[in-house]
Structure formats: structure tokens, C-alpha cells
């Protein structure tokens, strides 16, 4: 298996809180990699460091064999990493279609002069962007809301739209931050199918999720964070049996319901 992303000893501190300490993990091309852990374990911080929203205090990421620029989100996206947010962050006033089109920004090149003159390249690129965005809406199953304003979509559809927008950046690695949060059972099943479809299309997925059932059913491998440290990394079946994980999750550690 080819390694796509390697995190090497990532550390991040906020004031007195060590949010991440010495986290290393390896994500292989084509897999769905789960990152779980209780609230406040550092999962989202890991995301933010990976995608350039924060600069890590220590360690580095190697993506496709080259180090990732830190603190420059747009360069990270250019390298092929896209993300979604735990608390959905759409462009609220844009339509669903336009949200996805905005996601395609980094793969397009029209400049102000071209836009002003509407030259052939610009027009063609715009047409392709529109069509491609529509295809992506279709891909996540919300093409019927293409012209609806993002803020008016239902919660589940907003989640899908965010994924479509991330896919529009043409990523090799798609990082999803709790995509199932707030979804009901049916929506969660649909989401699972969608993620599988994405993997099927050759995109590696990094998944933070609370819904352990979803993670266990979907992921090829899972890492567990607790207090900013990686306490386990393995295939789901093994992780589920891991005492440290059970302790971290069900709480107390001393009480074991087995």
C-alpha cells in the first residue's frame, strides 16, 4: 500500500492546554481512515493543523512524499487535501450550486481581464465549472436543490453540500469532521453509502466521527485519540476490543460492562 499522508510527531498547545502531543499516524492511499476519541480529545485540532488553519508547534506532515506547507490553507488545498467542518460552514447566501462552484476555485484560472472580456477560456471554464458542480451535487444526491440558497437546505443536505464542495477542490484526501453529527439513522446510512462511493472513486478519506457504529462499519483502519495522544491505531475489530479505548469511551475505565 502506498502511503498518502504521514503525520510525524505533531504537537499543538493552546495556552495551558496540550491539545495534541506527539501524534504520528499514516494514512494509505485509497483507505477510509477513522479518527475517534471522546469530546475534547484533540481530533478537530488535528484537522486544523493538517489543513493549515493552525501551525503545529512541533512535527510535520508529509503528503505524497513532500512536506505540507503549514499555516497556508490554500496551498494545502492545492496539494490535494480538502476538508469539511464539524459545525457546517457553508457560504450561506450562495446557492448550493454556487457553493460547489466556489469549491472549484483553486482548479480554475480565469483572471479579471478574461472575465471582463468574457474570452473563450473564461466562458468555457465557467461552463465546465457549472456543469461539474452540478455533477457533484448529483453525486451527493442533492441536485434538485441546485438553485436553493444554502442556508435554506435541511441539515442533512447541508452536510452533503459541504462534502460536494470539498470534492470540488479535486482532493486526493478528503477529511470529514463529524459528518454524521445530527443526522438520523436513515441519513447516516445514506452518508455511509456516499463515503463508500467516494472511496470507490479512489479518494482517500479521513473521518472524524462520534458515531462509533458508523466508524466501525466504514473504516479500514481507526486511530483513537485521548487527551491529545494516540492511544490506539488498528483495524476496527481490534480497536473495539482495546481496553484503553473502551475506558476512554465508556468512561471511568474501571467499569467494564463485559
Amino acid at each position, binding site marked *: 500500500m502506498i502511503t498518502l499522508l504521514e503525520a510525524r510527531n505533531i504537537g499543538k498547545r493552546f495556552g495551558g492546554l496540550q491539545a495534541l502531543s506527539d501524534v504520528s499516524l499514516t494514512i494509505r492511499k485509497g483507505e477510509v481512515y477513522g479518527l475517534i476519541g471522546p469530546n*475534547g480529545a484533540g481530533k478537530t485540532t488535528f484537522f486544523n493543523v493538517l489543513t493549515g488553519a493552525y501551525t503545529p508547534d512541533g512535527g510535520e506532515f508529509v503528503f505524497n512524499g513532500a512536506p505540507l506547507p503549514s499555516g497556508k490553507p490554500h496551498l494545502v488545498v492545492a496539494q490535494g487535501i480538502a476538508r469539511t467542518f464539524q459545525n457546517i460552514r457553508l457560504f450561506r447566501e450562495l446557492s448550493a450550486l454556487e457553493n460547489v462552484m466556489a469549491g472549484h476555485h483553486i482548479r480554475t484560472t480565469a483572471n479579471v481581464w478574461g472575465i471582463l472580456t468574457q474570452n473563450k477560456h473564461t466562458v468555457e471554464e465557467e461552463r465546465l465549472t457549472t456543469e461539474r458542480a452540478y455533477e457533484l451535487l448529483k453525486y451527493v444526491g442533492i441536485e434538485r436543490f441546485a438553485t436553493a440558497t444554502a*442556508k435554506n437546505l435541511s441539515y442533512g443536505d447541508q452536510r452533503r453540500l459541504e462534502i460536494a464542495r470539498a470534492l470540488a477542490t479535486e482532493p486526493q484526501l478528503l477529511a470529514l469532521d463529524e459528518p*454524521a453529527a445530527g443526522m438520523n439513522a436513515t441519513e447516516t446510512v445514506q452518508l455511509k453509502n456516499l463515503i463508500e462511493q467516494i472511496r470507490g472513486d479512489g479518494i482517500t478519506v479521513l473521518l472524524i466521527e*462520534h458515531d462509533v457504529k458508523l466508524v466501525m*462499519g466504514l473504516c479500514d483502519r481507526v486511530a483513537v485519540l485521548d487527551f491529545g495522544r494516540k492511544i490506539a491505531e488498528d483495524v476496527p475489530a481490534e480497536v473495539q476490543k482495546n481496553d484503553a479505548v473502551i*475506558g476512554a469511551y465508556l468512561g*471511568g475505565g474501571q*467499569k467494564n*460492562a463485559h
Partner: protein
Amino acid sequence: MHTNPISPLLQLSAMKVAYGGIQAVKGIDLELYRGELVSLIGANGAGKTTTLNAIAGSLKIADGEIHYEGEKVHVLPAHKRLRRGIALVPEGRGIFTRLTVEENLRMGAYTRNDKAAIEQDLERVYTMLPRVKERLAQIAGTLSGGEQQMVAIGRALLSRPKLLLLDEPSMGLAPLVVEKIFEVVQSVAKEGVTILLVEQNANLALEFSQRAYVMESGKITLTGSGAELLTNPKVRAAYLGEAA
């Protein structure tokens, strides 16, 4: 006011809450009797926090009713519900980070004017939470998570609540600290304060609770005594994804 001891202290009937176009709570019924410690457990996003916020008055309900001491309280603003004895320790603790620890605690007594009694209550909180006492003059934002949680609980107690709503007091805390906090919660319960506890740490919550409700996707799907639920395979399934 003399109320019938058998009637519930708090009663939610068909309560619905929606915000930002999402219906987060889809019509739930829940009862709480005086002196009980009841927990509300469920996965992230199930609607637990929303429920607590609706009871405390931070969120408007879309439909249904909230009765408290036999009175419809869902029409009242949050600050009036506090005056009637409903206190919420919000998720993420809601500490005033720019105020000192003591100021935070005194904010809890904002609605009270009985100075002497407030001082007494402060002393009681200090004995209950000795670590807080050491840091009275410190800016609350510089406290550790556990200490902040202690302050948040202490602050809520200073309003002399009849009903205390606790939203994930263990979130992001080390096991030892969580243990401490639950000791505090228990001692509060022993003093006769009715507690509704929202918790992810299901084992812990169920161990301490007399009863519990399990929420899933905005609905209550299970209810029973703490011990019953602790051994219920469905609960484990909800958390660890084991086949039910």
C-alpha cells in the same frame, strides 16, 4: 407555594425545538421528580444539549409545553426561570473567562439579595470545592478545564437552585478530575437538589443516576433505571457500535 409532592417538579410534554431550519428535538416527554438525579444520554447531536437549553430558557421551544412546579415556564425568559430555581451549567462550562473566579461565583448569586446567606453559601461552596478556594482572585479563563467545571457548578449552586441542569460536566476532562466532579454532583444531589444530567460518559452517568433517558436523533428512545440501562445492550450499541 405548597405543591403536591407526587406531581413532577419538571414535566416536558411533546416539546419540540428547532433552530437554523433543523428540528433538533422532535417532541419529547420527560418528567423529573423532586430529589431525583436523572441522566439524559445519547450520541453527539442527539438533541440532549438542545433539550437542556430549552428547559433553561436559552432556546425557544417550537411546540409543546414545559411545566415546572405546576407552572408553564416556557413562556418566561431565561433570567426569570433562574429566579424560580432552574439553573443550567452549560456545555463547555460557560465560564466568564474575563472575570475572576470569585466574580464568577458571585454571578451565580446575582438574583439574590440576602447578603449574609450568600456569604454562607460561598463558604459552603469553598468547602465543597477546596481547589476553587485557592484561586478566588485568579482570572477564570486561566483555570484548567476541571477547575472551570468546578467553578461552573459552584456558580450554579449559588443561585440556590431547586433544579440543576448539568450539560456534559466530564467533557474533555481527565478521569481523575471526572471522578472528583461526580463526587461533587453526588453531594449536591444529597442535599436535595433535583438534577438532570446530560452526559456522554454513559457508564459514569448511569452508575450515579436513579433513572435515565436515552436520546437518539431528537427523540427519547429508551428510559429506565440507571442500573437497568447500564446492562442494556442497546446502550452499548449506541456507543461502541457493537451489534445490538
